[in-house]
């Protein structure tokens, strides 16, 4: 069946401001046609998930309206959206692990039917099973209904999630990055299922950051960036190059001032990673054999859409996660670390992007925060006790040197703005006089002044001879700072090149999973 031209759903001028002030959507309009598979493509943070949560009733828009089959609607909950035939499969799993597939699927339905006081005895399992078997037949979405979910592979769990939504009778199925945890074979099977659903007249929205997948399975692609729709193309007219450019933006006027003129790849590398394999929390290989070197006086930038193994790579290097295999050599010493302290003792600074979660304790004072991770150092202790006087002196020093705006050293870190919080983390880490700086998304979510300031600091320390490993999903940042650029995709470094030879569009393609012919890893 071909997609029709009639609109099933229309989103008009949607904006969304989260309670913490984050503007996630800035006036998005989008229509979805009957029977199509629509690809929603964009980098991390583009607003894809937020938009679809609004469409599926999980979130309410700040402004804007929603039309289903031409009529204005307002969804107060996912149940409202389901009543209009719209259901979403979320990015993370929502199943109860020690329930069976069947129990998981009928869980929500039965509760709605019986209210909160309902008992299990009223459930007609048999009729559910019958109907589910029929549904599985039609959709070719086969799952063992009696199996406990925790015993299923991730691919089967994914199917269960889909089946669960379909069983609620949806006509518009939203899938948020459904291939993240799937093997290539499972991805193929998923696509088969989607084509099959389409042939039965269902409408599908497929969210992804992988250009290749968007091109393979969709009829039409809408590209989002920075909370806006920046392009829309019928898939058969789309090329990976155009999509890549839309995804990462066209801003080619690069600020190369910060960049060193030529890569310095002489001498002994400060950091050498060899054949590193690291598993993620789900036990899947997130880093699949990564090797690279970072030399003193250079910034080695790893570009890539988030979720391609960068987080696990950084965790392994900083001692937070044990690698499966491979080697990490720092200053010529092969490290096998038990805790991050061992790594820090070697003179490594770690600047995390998620400062509130990893870098700071918001309830602690500024003073206390300046010694996090350094509380064992001689200059801050007297025997087993902390030397608060010298800590206070040092805290003031950091505040002055890194231009941190704070009511004082005894104010809670919570009282600081995001930019100043990050300055605090960066200041603390850089004052260790590091030989190696590991910065992961160091300016995410910061105001422009703080962003520029932190980038300048990184460049300054690079010029002083530190080796900097920069991991960032922000291409501007990568291009502004890096001396060499690598691209990580699906756990591998798929390309590495001197920054002056790098081209934005090409990097965009690589990030989206396109191996450019002329490029060699």
């Amino acid at each position, binding site marked *: 069946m071909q997609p029709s031209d009639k609109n099933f759903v229309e989103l008009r001028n949607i904006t969304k401001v989260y309670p913490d002030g984050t503007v996630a959507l800035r006036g998005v309009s989008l229509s979805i046609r009957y029977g199509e598979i629509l690809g929603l493509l964009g980098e991390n943070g583009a607003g894809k998930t937020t938009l679809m949560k609004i469409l599926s009733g999980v979130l309410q828009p700040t402004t804007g309206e929603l039309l289903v089959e031409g009529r204005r609607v307002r969804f107060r909950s996912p149940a409202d959206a389901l009543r209009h035939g719209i259901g979403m499969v979320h990015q993370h799993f929502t199943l109860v692990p020690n329930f069976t597939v069947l129990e998981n699927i009928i869980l929500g339905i039965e509760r709605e039917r019986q209210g909160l006081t309902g008992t299990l005895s009223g459930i007609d399992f048999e009729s559910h099973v019958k109907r589910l078997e029929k549904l599985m037949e039609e959709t070719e979405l086969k799952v063992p209904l009696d199996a406990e979910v925790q015993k299923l592979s991730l691919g089967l769990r994914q199917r269960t999630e889909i089946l669960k939504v379909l069983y609620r009778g949806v006509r518009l199925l939203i899938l948020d990055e459904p291939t993240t945890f799937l093997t290539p074979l499972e991805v193929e099977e998923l696509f088969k299922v989607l084509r099959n659903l389409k042939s039965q007249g269902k409408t599908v929205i497929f969210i992804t950051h992988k250009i290749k997948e968007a091109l393979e399975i969709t009829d039409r692609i809408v590209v989002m960036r920075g909370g806006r729709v920046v392009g829309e193309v019928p898939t058969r007219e789309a090329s990976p190059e155009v999509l890549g450019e839309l995804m990462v933006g066209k801003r080619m006027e690069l600020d190369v001032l910060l960049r060193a003129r030529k890569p310095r790849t002489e001498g002994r590398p400060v950091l050498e990673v060899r054949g590193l394999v690291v598993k993620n929390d789900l036990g899947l290989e997130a880093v699949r054999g990564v090797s690279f070197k970072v030399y003193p006086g250079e910034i080695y930038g790893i570009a890539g859409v988030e979720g391609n193994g960068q987080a696990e790579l950084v965790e392994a290097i900083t*001692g937070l996660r044990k690698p499966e295999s491979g080697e990490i050599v720092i200053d010529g010493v092969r490290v096998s670390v038990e805790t*991050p302290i061992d790594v820090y003792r070697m003179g490594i600074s770690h600047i995390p992007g998620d400062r509130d979660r990893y870098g700071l304790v*918001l309830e602690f004072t500024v003073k206390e925060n300046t010694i996090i991770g350094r509380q064992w150092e001689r200059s801050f202790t007297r025997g087993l006790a902390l030397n608060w006087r010298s800590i206070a002196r040092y805290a003031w020093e950091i505040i002055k040197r890194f231009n941190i705006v704070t009511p004082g050293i005894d104010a809670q870190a919570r009282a600081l703005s995001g930019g100043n919080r990050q300055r605090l983390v960066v200041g603390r880490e850089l004052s260790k006089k590091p030989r190696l700086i590991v910065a992961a998304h160091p300016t995410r979510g910061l105001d422009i002044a703080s962003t520029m300031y932190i980038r300048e600091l990184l460049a300054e320390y690079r010029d002083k001879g530190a080796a900097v490993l920069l991991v960032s999903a922000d291409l501007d940042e990568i291009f502004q700072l890096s001396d060499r650029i690598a691209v990580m995709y699906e756990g591998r470094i798929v390309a590495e090149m001197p920054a002056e030879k790098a081209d934005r569009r090409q990097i965009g393609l690589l990030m989206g999973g396109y191996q450019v012919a002329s490029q060699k890893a």
Partner: protein
Amino acid sequence: MGLASRILETVAQPLLALAIGLAVSALLMAIYGYDPVLAYKALFTGAYGSTYDLMETLAFAVPIMLTGITFAIGVRAGLFNIGAEGQLYMGAIGAVIAGAFLSLPWPLHVLVATLAGMLFGLLWSVGPALLKVFRGVHEVISTIMFNWIAFYLATYLVLYQLAEPGRAEKTYSVLETARYGVLVEGTSLTSVLFVAIAFNIAVNVFLTQTKMGFELRMYGLNPDAARFAGISEKKVIIVSFLIGGLAAGLAGATQVLGRPPTWALYGTLGNVVRLGFEGIGVALIGRNHPIGIIIASLFVGGLRHGGRYMEIEAGIYSELVDAVTGLIIIALAVPEVFEAIKRYRLKRRVAGG
């Protein structure tokens, strides 16, 4: 946050909570046909009205300011350690054994018996700590189990091993050389009060002035950042449990070595039972701060002692007295409970995002 609003929060909030607790309790008493004004007068003059009453209130405060520490130091490390009850029984047993069966000169005997109580409490906290660290068993489950085991073990020991011949209802009394001195003749307040206060102050110093205390607080507030900073999760959990065990063990010892007239442990464990759980309320009212806990214990101790007068003077039967004092304690604890829930939610949101 401005100074004014901070004062408002630290002073006005508990006062408001207290007012609500008193009002609800008054209503409850009125429903049952008692005069709330008379009852409250009996309660407060009973608690703080005379030197004698003040001393008794202080005597009630001693064990709960210590079991309050057990719960609080758990919370400060991000744990929900409700094992004070069992550790307290074991502490009392340890104090009885060392106090009644060793023969040492005063005051060495006092010291040894006190340390024995603390040691027993500490040992009883090792189980849940290790289960948590090595097997991932949640401390709520394990401490409840250990509380029950301690209850039956202590009851068995009291009735079959330590019972004073001919007086089956209690253990041997500890020797004169192992007793804390009574401070005011005719009251049950002894110098053990100073030991308890010193312990709380020491815990406060530990939390604010030492490296380990810093790490413990950091882990409790933000475990992710703590791991990032190289802090050993295992060490924090074990230390928190052990300090909690010491505190509860000491609490048990105070009731044997420092609370006339028994100088022993009853077969029903009647003179120690519930004191561990009472520490939870005390810790919550004291905002899990060692100094706040001292103040809270004076208040809760006052309710416990003064509550008796509600029975005597206003004729309210004891179950209702328990309900009334319980309601007041809950009302005072509610703000901290809300805070805790808020923190927990925040943590979950961060972790989930």
